[in-house]
């Protein structure tokens, strides 16, 4: 019995001495370890701003596709050093985490690839070129890609580009803000091919309500101007995107008198491209009604022999490659015609199904276009991409019908 107590006692003593030694060393090293851990956590920040005060910085979550966080860095005197933007972007091996440091002059301090799953050789290739971002000013960043590590590099410049947009601001958005104070976002509606303006935009406020519309006019290669109207088609003036030269500025100012008059009442006589744009837009505004819908829809009366006999819906959706726009005419609540007005499908595969016309016919003839099996109308060789093309066409017809039924064909 005594033996056992003795053994237990010895073990206890050994354990206690060991414990004491550990606690002693722990108290000695505790502070330093904490310091080191902090330093590791902020290693990337410190390598961008060596003077950064780690106890005093602001962190703001960014609600964006690419950028996740913005860190506002101050030095120990509380002076503003710059921003660190943290972005995440897909690359070959997984998601790359990229840090972009921006100083108070709006120049890039450093770009860091802080987390990646790409192979070492690819990463090395990318890191070699990260240095060239240093000191570049936004607005004139040189994105020359190296041969080789394409996806890795793409993921990095996407982040730098997003930072650039955030610092420099989006010229399109700024242009809209100069007209509508509440403008918060915009989306592209249609491409126009034969008209004086090339693209049409919805301008929305923070709640998503449409404030107005804009039409992009390329005066020449350097100068771009937006024609802006509000949602009642009242002319709000021409606004420049970016800076424009004096000549264009003069053209714009010539229209200042017309601001706040309905577009249809403007009858300019300047003979320039801006006049063409107004003239091209007038008939569109007069004959069509714009609506906001999941798949963007806009409709106008279908007129035959000067008599309104039906409604034509213009529907935009995404095809296999990019936007596809279709015109669906409905007469007496029945599908009457369906034409694809513009698309970007590849000539060999997607376009074949459109040019073929079989699917359009089938969609019109069907009692319920939703039931049409698109795959039957694609050739065997072209299944994959073309199926998506066909499905986009089907979506257009279905959306037009749905809208027509909901709104009662007004």
């Amino acid at each position, binding site marked *: 019995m005594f*033996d056992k107590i*003795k053994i237990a006692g*010895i073990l206890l003593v*050994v354990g206690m001495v060991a414990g004491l*030694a*550990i606690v002693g060393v722990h108290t*000695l*090293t505790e502070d330093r370890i904490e310091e080191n851990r902090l*330093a*590791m956590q902020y290693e990337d920040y410190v390598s961008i701003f060596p003077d950064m005060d780690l106890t005093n910085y602001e962190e703001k979550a960014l609600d964006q596709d690419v950028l996740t966080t913005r860190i506002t860095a101050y030095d120990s005197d509380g002076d503003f050093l710059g921003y660190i933007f943290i972005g995440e972007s897909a690359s070959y091996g997984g998601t790359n985490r990229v840090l972009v440091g921006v100083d108070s002059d709006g120049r890039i301090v450093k770009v860091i690839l802080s987390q990646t799953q790409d192979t070492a050789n690819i990463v090395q290739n990318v890191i070699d070129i990260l240095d060239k971002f240093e000191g570049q000013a936004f607005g004139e960043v040189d994105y020359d890609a190296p041969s080789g590590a394409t996806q890795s590099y793409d993921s990095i410049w996407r982040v730098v580009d997003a930072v650039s947009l955030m610092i420099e601001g989006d010229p399109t958005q700024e242009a809209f803000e100069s007209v509508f104070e509440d403008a918060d976002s915009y989306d592209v509606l249609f491409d126009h091919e034969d008209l004086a303006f090339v693209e049409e935009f919805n301008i929305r406020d923070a709640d998503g309500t449409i404030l107005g519309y804009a039409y992009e006019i390329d005066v020449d290669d350097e100068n771009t101007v937006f024609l802006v109207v509000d949602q009642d088609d009242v002319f709000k003036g021409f606004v420049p995107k970016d800076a424009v030269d004096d000549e264009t500025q003069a053209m714009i100012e010539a229209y200042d008198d017309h601001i706040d008059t309905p577009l249809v009442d403007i009858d300019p006589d300047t003979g320039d491209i801006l006049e063409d744009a107004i003239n091209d837009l007038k008939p569109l505004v007069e004959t069509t009604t714009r609506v906001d819908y999941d798949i963007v829809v806009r409709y106008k009366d279908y007129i035959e022999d000067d008599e309104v006999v039906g409604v034509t819906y213009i529907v935009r959706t995404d095809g296999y490659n990019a936007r596809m726009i279709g015109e669906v005419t409905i007469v007496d609540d029945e599908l009457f015609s369906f034409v694809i007005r513009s698309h970007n499908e590849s000539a060999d595969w997607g376009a074949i199904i459109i040019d073929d016309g079989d699917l359009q016919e089938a969609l019109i003839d069907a009692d319920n276009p939703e039931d049409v099996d698109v795959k039957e109308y694609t050739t065997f060789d072209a299944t994959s991409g073309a199926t998506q093309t066909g499905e986009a066409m089907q979506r257009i017809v279905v959306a037009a019908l749905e809208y027509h039924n909901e709104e009662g064909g007004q």
Partner: protein
Amino acid sequence: MAEKKVAKNPMKKKKKNGRLDILTKGFIRENPIFIFLLGMCPALAVTSTMETGLGMGLLVILVLTGSNVVVSLIRNLIPEQIQIPAFIVVIATFVTIVGMLTEAYAFALHQSLGIFIPLIVVNCLIMGRATSFASKNKVSDSAIDGFGMALGFTFALMLIGATREIFASGAIALGVYLPLPFEISIINTEMYLFNMDVFAGPAGGFIVIGVLLALFTAIGNYRQKKKEAERQAWIEQKKKEAAERKRKKAMESAGDAS
């Protein structure tokens, strides 16, 4: 002259200086990794560069010397039954302390060794030296033994690490992980062919150790063969001498008879 050399019995070892022998035996003759295959886990895991191998080696030197000394100090106080648990406590204490010191003063090394710092506890080398040497010898010898063995371990780790690093990156760097005041490349071949990623990874670790082991075995075999040949020659000579003596004796007796 030459014959005399051969005549020396190669099986008889010359008496070595005890302390020096204890210190140096771990280097090649009883190298923990290449001969006894102890501590293979760290030998594979932390040798992607020479410097991490060196760092691990330094930690093992501290732990092994320390634990050997303490074990040797308390060897007479600990009853047989609780030897193992008591030694484990001693070793684990040293490992914890060394781990904390590393984290405080060599943080980069601590990060790169990661989980293998606490795992020094289960490194068979340390427990093995504690039970087989330190618990039976006096303090000074135990200290020398621990230091020498750990030195051999460090040497092996550095050799493996250097091989892997040169193949993986074409250069050997120093000062990246250890808190040294400088950061240099000891060797820099700048050859693109040496950028074999695979050697920095696990597969390269296994293969490099395998090849090095085969090399050591081959050298060992060669030496043993040579020794064996020497021994054979010595036996032959002894036989010859005996035969000669016999012949002489016979001749003498024959001469006497005549």
